[in-house]
């Protein structure tokens, strides 16, 4: 099968599967669409049916990189500062603590597993452990958005908790992307040319510069432009160029494009149009990313079972435990309840994007273990992420015996919607 036909059939197949099957399930049973594309990719890929060959996956490398970069821009486009300033500081404090604690716990446990059980030298085990930590931090935003829509339809309460979940989901995305972006600077291989290899700090500066300079330059470039078609061309150029530059320099495209997205929605007068264009293109690219991520999956040649099982057990525990500890440290336990972290257990496509980005690097350590762990975690948690959120909110409501409708949402509730106001596909 030619690579072009392969792309058409997998995306068309994915779309039909989503339309006929999962959309109905999503409406009726509160199941999030996303993981099925991943599964479809695995089934069509070289490890299962072989309909998509390894060469075909390689030939679509630019698409995958662009999809990863566009996902970063979509995350960044949700950070409108004016909206974010309406949220209380304690909501950010709780979210940041939860994200950092999860990163530290999962990273540390996996580091011990890689060193002790796989016999990996400490120096080389840090990278895969930290990447899994970054992957573990990310949360399925679409699950939270879907549950929020259902709860809003039922006039159910829990706005405070939902607001915090939205803030945490956005913060998780930022921490995951930043941690992964900086990690690639630390473990960067020397460039093939004769130039002096930049230090990790210099790589970090280059990564941030691609995003910041790109954002500022494109802000000036797009100034006053409101025509949707021309905005689309210019934004496509901006995100493609930033993704290509980052990937070319063997850096993560996620961080620079996230910065570009954030700068553009905060500085441009055409903020809504820019966000609309980014989100309109995000969906098809996200679909392609998930399918190719599935097709790119390869079982590890190393003993993979223990580290992956370990990740699958440690991550939810770390999420729930970190959320509880973060709420206690920031004094929000009373408002959120001790179990609010269950709402953050679902993982979505951002986890896949980070793991896939790591898997595509030519110098990565244990890439297949990292990627497999992320894929299985998404497959297990993404479908039921909305149900988890709904159950968490309902449990919270019962505990606090709140009235059936909540006319005065608590702090962070509605403003939290600004963080993920599109119900992004993370």
């Amino acid at each position, binding site marked *: 099968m*030619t690579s072009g036909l392969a792309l058409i059939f997998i995306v068309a197949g994915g779309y039909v599967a989503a339309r006929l099957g999962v959309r109905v399930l999503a409406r009726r049973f509160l199941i999030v669409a996303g993981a099925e594309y991943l599964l479809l990719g695995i089934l069509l890929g070289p490890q299962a049916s072989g309909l998509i060959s390894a060469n075909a996956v390689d030939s679509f490398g*630019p698409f*995958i990189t662009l999809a990863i970069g566009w996902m970063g821009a979509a995350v960044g486009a949700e950070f409108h500062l004016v909206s974010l300033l309406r949220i209380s500081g304690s909501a950010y404090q709780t979210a940041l603590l939860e994200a950092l604690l999860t990163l530290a716990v999962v990273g540390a446990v996996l580091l011990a597993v890689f060193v002790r059980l796989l016999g990996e030298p400490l120096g080389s085990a840090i990278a895969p452990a930290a990447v899994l930590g970054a992957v573990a931090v990310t949360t399925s935003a679409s699950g939270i958005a879907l549950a929020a829509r259902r709860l809003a339809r039922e006039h159910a309460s829990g706005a405070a908790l939902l607001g915090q979940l939205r803030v945490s989901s956005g913060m998780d995305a930022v921490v995951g992307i930043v941690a992964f972006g900086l990690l690639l600077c630390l473990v960067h291989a020397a460039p093939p040319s004769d130039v002096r290899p930049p230090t990790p700090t210099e790589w970090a500066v280059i990564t941030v510069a691609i995003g910041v300079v790109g954002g500022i330059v494109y802000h000036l470039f797009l100034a006053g432009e409101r025509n949707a078609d021309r905005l*689309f061309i210019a934004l*496509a150029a901006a995100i493609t160029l930033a*993704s*290509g530059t980052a*990937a070319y320099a063997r850096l993560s495209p996620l961080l620079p494009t996230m910065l570009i997205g954030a700068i553009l929605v905060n500085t441009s007068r055409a903020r809504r149009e820019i966000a609309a264009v980014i989100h309109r293109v995000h969906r098809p690219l996200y679909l392609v990313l998930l399918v190719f991520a599935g097709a790119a999956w390869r079982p590890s040649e190393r003993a993979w079972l223990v580290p992956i099982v370990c990740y699958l057990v440690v991550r939810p525990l770390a999420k729930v435990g970190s959320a509880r500890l973060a709420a206690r440290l920031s004094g929000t336990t009373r408002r959120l309840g001790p179990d609010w972290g269950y709402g953050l257990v679902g993982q979505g496509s951002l986890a896949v994007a980070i793991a896939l980005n790591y898997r595509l690097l030519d110098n990565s350590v244990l890439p297949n273990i990292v990627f497999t762990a992320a894929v299985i975690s998404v497959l297990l948690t993404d479908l039921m992420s909305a149900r988890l959120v709904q159950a968490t909110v309902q449990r919270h409501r019962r505990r606090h015996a709140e009235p059936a409708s909540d006319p005065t949402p608590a702090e962070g509730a509605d403003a939290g919607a600004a963080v993920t106001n599109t119900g992004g596909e993370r």
Partner: protein
Amino acid sequence: MRRPVILLIVFGLVELVRPLGSTGYGAQALLTFGFLLLAAYTVGEIAASIGIPAIVGYMAAGAAFGPWGLDSVSREAVARLVPVSDLAIALIAFLAGAELQWQEVRDRGVALLKVVSTELLLGAVALGATLYAMQDVVPFLRDLPRSELLAVVVLFASVAVVHSPAVTMALLTDTGARGPVARTTLGVVLITDVVVVLLFTGALTVARSLVPIAGAAGLSFGVVAWEIAGALLVGGVLGGAAALYLRFVGEELFLFALLFTLLGAEVAHLAHVEALLTLLVAGFVAENVSPHGSGEALRRAMERSAAPVFVVFFALSGAQMDLSAVLRLLPLLLPLALVRGGALWAGTRLGSRWAGIGDPERRLLWLGLVSQAGVAIGLASVLAGVFPSFGGELRTLLLAFIALNQTIGPVLFRRALVQGGEIAPRARSPAPAEPVGS
């Protein structure tokens, strides 16, 4: 002024990053694509602001940053972006087909055929005769035996008369012009696209009889017939499928538009049928069979998804222009271009009179037919492969000739649309008073 400065800054930054990179997973292709898109868009906007078609700006950017210019976009990078060109051509063909209304084909099909046959015949004879007369001044023709000279003349004429659906569609998409000059030009260009397959095949057969090639397989009538009839069949089926999708699903048109054109190009390739004609028919069927309004929605989605692809397609065309060959051959190209222009002028006037087409089409049509692009380049490349003895030099001559027409053609077509009152002199949008779809 702001945008060119920003482009220069981005160019400098890309050059700074270049020594730090590696080419794995198509990162370089993505970098090139992004830069080319930005550069072409910027130069295109500048061109449009001074009344030159944006696509000339796109090509100028490609030429400036391409292998013959600053070499910021290398030859390898251009080669890696060939699928973008294929996608663009497929989108162009589908959009062109979708522009045609059944009513219009029924009402004006015969008239357009008369114009096409007149201008093609006159153009082929005039161009062939001119090249034959220039035998002593064209270096590679000087020492050719008579039979080979005649073969070169026939082949040159069959490619030199080709028009460009890509430029026509891109300019119509860019300007939104839908008046009589725009529609007649599009009709002539599309019919020529079908006729040219037959003409080129005939020319190839004549050339092979004049210059037999040892071990070469003959091009049978059956193959040519299948290329065209198969394209009608496959395109019809694809168009029907698109119409069904629009009727029963009608969602995610942006994604559907891209996938559908990719599918059409792949299926045409696998079925060995003419890809352009396949997608043209598919577009025509989808537009005319779909429920009212949904074909328009699909066309709009295609135009949106095509926008960056068009920009890069024309920038790549510019990057592939061998500027040194154009400059070297310019003294030969100018008389040929003048003869072609004259033949177009006379051919369209005669053909229009025969078909009963009045002004302003009769007066302005020839200006829209000067452009040449993808199809002609493809045919020139085929010649180089089929006739090793003179094909390479003939291709260089043809590519330089096409580059010249590609550069001046859009300017002339835009001028025709302005003179016809179908677009405002400096605006990119159609003139407000102009009736649409007449």
